């Protein structure tokens, strides 16, 4: 098992190298003079020259790359033009907000989608099967920002049950003392029930938006893979051996059906991390997505680059986690490693 994890870690390295190269090339592909870009529109000629030197842009590309990598290894992602703050620090402080939102969205969608897919597969043609089909087809067609706005309109403007879509916490509350950075957890640790409820209220709509978005691919895959497994020969053998439906579905079908679903989670994460940017904009969520969007509007490239890199590294790590999870279930991967 440990060998498998180590082996998989080794295999994540080429991906990470690829990610670093691509983000580096993206900066260098900026139209015009990157130095002028970084210096901002109002900079003088000398200022641009100075920045060029400062950024090492007067050196050949390989040397620039070495410099870029060594900066990164020291946790230096450059400085945001608009705020003057180091990008890395800003991203670190905003990361928990994004992570809390994305994880809650994922958990909710898995909790709904997996049972829905299983029930649909075990009773084809039933009401729940049709519900599942509608949910999956409609779900993948919903633009995530549109879902968010419609939810805001109904639950905030019409019904008035949701708070205004303005960040993680109502202005009357102060953030709980930071331990994990997740307000839900931190407020529980601080035994602050009111803050917990207030931050949960803020979280519900954006998390629901993400959950609706992630629901479709998970439910669709669960249903399809459960159907495939239920039609497989070993399930037929299990049935022909008189095993109870519970044993057949849980021990024989479900565990096997989860393997493709876990693989799908990789794709779901890819979608979720992207959707997260849009949801953060809709709900003015102070995460790294809205940080990147603000920087984009201000043509401030360093934060965007830092954001792309952070997201990619997180995504590589999540995929690693998925593979380890896969290995936990599937002995074929575990033993052969």
């Amino acid at each position, binding site marked *: 098992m440990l060998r498998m994890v180590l082996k998989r870690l080794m295999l994540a390295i080429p991906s990470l190298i690829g990610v670093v190269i691509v983000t580096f090339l993206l900066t260098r592909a900026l139209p015009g003079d990157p130095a002028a870009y970084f210096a901002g529109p109002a900079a003088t000629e000398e200022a641009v020259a100075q920045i060029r030197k400062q950024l090492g842009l007067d050196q050949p590309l390989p040397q620039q790359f070495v410099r870029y990598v060594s900066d990164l290894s020291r946790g230096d992602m450059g400085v945001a033009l608009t705020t003057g703050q180091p990008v890395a620090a800003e991203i670190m402080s905003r990361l928990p907000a994004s992570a809390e939102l994305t994880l809650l969205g994922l958990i909710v969608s898995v909790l709904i989608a997996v049972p829905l897919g299983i029930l649909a597969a075990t009773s084809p043609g039933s009401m729940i099967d049709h519900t599942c089909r509608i949910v999956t087809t409609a779900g993948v067609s919903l633009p995530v920002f549109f879902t968010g706005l419609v939810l805001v*309109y109904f639950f905030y403007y019409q019904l008035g049950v949701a708070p205004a879509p303005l960040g993680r916490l109502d202005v009357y509350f102060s953030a709980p003392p930071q331990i994990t950075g997740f307000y839900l957890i931190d407020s529980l640790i601080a035994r602050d029930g009111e803050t917990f409820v207030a931050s949960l209220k803020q979280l519900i709509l954006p998390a629901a938006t993400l959950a609706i978005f992630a629901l479709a691919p998970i439910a669709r895959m669960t249903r399809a893979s459960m159907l495939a497994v239920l039609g497989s020969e070993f399930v037929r053998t299990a049935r022909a051996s008189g095993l109870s439906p519970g044993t057949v579905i849980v021990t024989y079908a479900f565990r096997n059906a989860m393997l493709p679903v876990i693989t799908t989670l990789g794709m779901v994460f890819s979608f979720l991390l*992207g959707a997260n940017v849009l949801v953060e904009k809709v709900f003015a969520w102070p995460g790294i997505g809205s940080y990147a969007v603000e920087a984009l509007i201000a043509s401030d490239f360093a934060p965007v680059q830092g954001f792309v890199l952070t997201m990619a590294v997180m995504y590589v790590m999540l995929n690693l986690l998925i593979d380890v999870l896969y290995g936990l279930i599937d002995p074929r991967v575990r033993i052969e490693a």
Partner: protein
Amino acid sequence: MSDATATPAAPTHGIGAILRHAQYVIGENKVTGFAFGLFLLIVLAALIGPYIVPHDPLASNTSAALQGPSAKYWFGTDQLGRDVFSRVIVATRLDFAIAIFSVALVFLMGGLAGVAAGFFGGWTDRIVSRIADTIMAFPLFVLAMGIVAALGNTVENIILATAIVNFPLYARIARAEANVRREAGFVQAARLSGNGEFRILLGHILPNIMPIMVVQMSLTMGYAILNAAGLSFIGLGVRPPTPEWGIMVAEGAAFMVSGEWWIAFFPGLALMLAVFCFNLLGDGLRDIIDPQRRT
């Protein structure tokens, strides 16, 4: 495959048989028929939309700003008094064009690279797979953001970025399909019949992969529209006042909390219907091509 024997009387020549089968599937499956109708509507709006809309999509009229849906303004007006209905219809052409071009581009890049990788193996395969893996290491929308931000804020770059992030999907499907056919009996038989490798690739393997790729194209059309609209929603690509669904939703977003729902709602609805249509159509096409792989 077994399904095709259902129409034994049908003449066996390509298009006729496919059309007959399509007719059968659409007749059988009303949802696909509905999607096809919707598709025709979208194409129509894209082609003649700008000539039939009741109002100029760009003309602002502050006296008529923020009016709800009415007989005069079917979908209401926005903060500048522009007719939302006209803007939604006119936007069809741009959104549709972005999707078509990016899908065509990725089909050419990813499809051909993948087929070559799967068929020839070796270095071709290693290079294509490495490129695909590197792109796959990014969350796709995030990479698209990065590409558009770096290359410049234009519609062309939106198309390119959408094509690039879809590259791995096409390359992998084409690669896998070509790979399983590489040593298939009919390919070996083609070698025995004196076909060179390139002729086998183009004459025997590609035609057999095309149906699968067409289904994929239909399914990714929806994703391409979503991706492009998402990028313009956060301010990349298309610039105001150009009518485009994503940017219109973005413009209307602020008014959602004050109750002027129609500004963002109708373009969002149009976006949703278009994506829905392509997804249903993709599923329907898959049924036509392979009735056994229904989900």
